[in-house]
């Protein structure tokens, strides 16, 4: 069993997964809040676009991301000028995972925000609080269970991402070979059987750990209830 390869894969997965959630969070929060609280003309289109990475094959999403960030593309050239490279780096892996985890994040955050009584937000606004203040003082404290649950779901999705990661970041040991890629590589090499088995056990354990933390955060009420807490009597459902 190649313990170095295992350590490298686990460390890389954690790094990329956490960075992916960090990247997806601001975008996801904004999108979820707009979708939860606002009505506008192109809303169905935005909803469809947000769900897209969830339904199209991850390899396709990876291909599109690669096309955008290749060093020869306009965006790629811009980044090269400031010395940044996305393709075939751990940052590219994190970016791919962020895009793939975004739909899950937006879905859970949206439900969490929708479960907050809008009348409370209205009340805060009526006494002069700005939009951001309302979010951080009213919406966030009431929906943080759901937000953390959403982040954990997004993390689990990011940790398990394969197709888009291998497309955008390749499969470079120590740089972009995350857990799922390491399992695939181990299986593709003649003596990797035990390494693959070890990695599989760790992958399952990590997924269980994420779910466990989710339960702990939601106070043992379960994942779904964490996202949509019970409404108080007398308030609108």
């Amino acid at each position, binding site marked *: 069993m190649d313990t170095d390869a295992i350590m490298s894969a686990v460390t890389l997965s954690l*790094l990329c997964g*956490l960075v992916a959630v960090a990247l997806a969070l601001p975008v996801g929060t904004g999108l979820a809040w707009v979708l939860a609280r606002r009505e506008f003309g192109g809303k169905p289109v935005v909803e469809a676009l947000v769900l897209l990475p969830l339904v199209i094959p991850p390899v396709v999403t990876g291909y599109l991301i690669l096309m955008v960030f290749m060093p020869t593309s306009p965006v790629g050239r811009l980044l090269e000028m400031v010395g940044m490279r996305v393709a075939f780096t751990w940052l590219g892996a994190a970016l791919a995972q962020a895009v793939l985890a975004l739909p899950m994040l937006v879905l859970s955050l949206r439900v969490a925000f929708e479960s907050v009584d809008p009348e409370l937000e209205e009340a805060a606004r009526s006494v002069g609080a700005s939009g951001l203040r309302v979010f951080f003082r009213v919406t966030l404290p009431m929906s943080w269970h759901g937000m953390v649950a959403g982040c954990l779901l997004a993390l689990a999705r990011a940790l398990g991402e394969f197709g888009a990661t291998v497309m955008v970041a390749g499969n470079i040991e120590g740089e972009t070979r995350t857990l799922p890629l390491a399992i695939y590589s181990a299986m593709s090499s003649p003596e990797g059987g035990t390494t693959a088995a070890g990695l599989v056990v760790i992958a399952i354990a990590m997924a269980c750990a994420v779910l466990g933390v989710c339960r702990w955060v939601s106070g043992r009420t379960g994942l779904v209830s964490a996202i949509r807490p019970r409404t108080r009597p007398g308030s609108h459902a």
Partner: protein
Amino acid sequence: MRAKPLLLMALLVLCGAWSGGCDEASSRAPAVEKTKLRVAIAASLQDVMADMREVMQRELVADIEFVPGASSTLAKQIEAGLDADVFISASSEWVDYLEKQALTTRGTRLNVAGNRLVVIAPSNSSSVPTSLRDLKEAAFHPIAIGDPAHVPAGRYARQALEAVGVWNDLKGKTADAPDVRAALAFVTSLQCRVGIVYQTDVAKRLDVRVCFPVDPLLHKPIVYTGVVVNRTKDPETAYRLVGWLTGPRGAEMFRSEGFLPPQ
């Protein structure tokens, strides 16, 4: 703020910092500023190059990192932005491919080694093929080869099978692997009863046996071609690496691990 969310955030930050720190530690600059070379190598070269690494690092005064893979996959990745300094392909056509995209440095292209294809089967096989024509038999299907569309080992195998006239009977009967080592893995894991790989891939293995070598005249010559990728930050050391492989030490190491001299 209550304790739980704070504790959770602290945990996440710690995880991120720890894994980020691990990354930092591995890229901390050593006391002496040594060139770091990333060498993209054909999958079949990973063992011999790993054995060469220490000597190469000492003699070239550089830190060398290998990125193994199918020559085709590596070439496409280099095209898409992979930061490699040197590329050593199992066929000249993938070096030609990069040359056409102006991604290689002129005058740094060298043939470093050769190889031979062999047909293999698991050691405990009761019946094995004795010639390429035997591969028509359904008992040996699917045949493990590198993807004949792009992997050099797969292309050479296809050329040989076409030359003896059995390729058309093997459509849909081959297990196309992403690189030659994965093709070997198909056979060692007993998913395939027969495979076509390089003789160097199985030289020291006990779990597979060589049924027969493939006549080199049936396919294009197997020539490992090394070249400097023009994206490199140190073209001089990169070229010295390619040159080292054709020098006495390099040639000796290739020979000792079963590779043929370059043509």
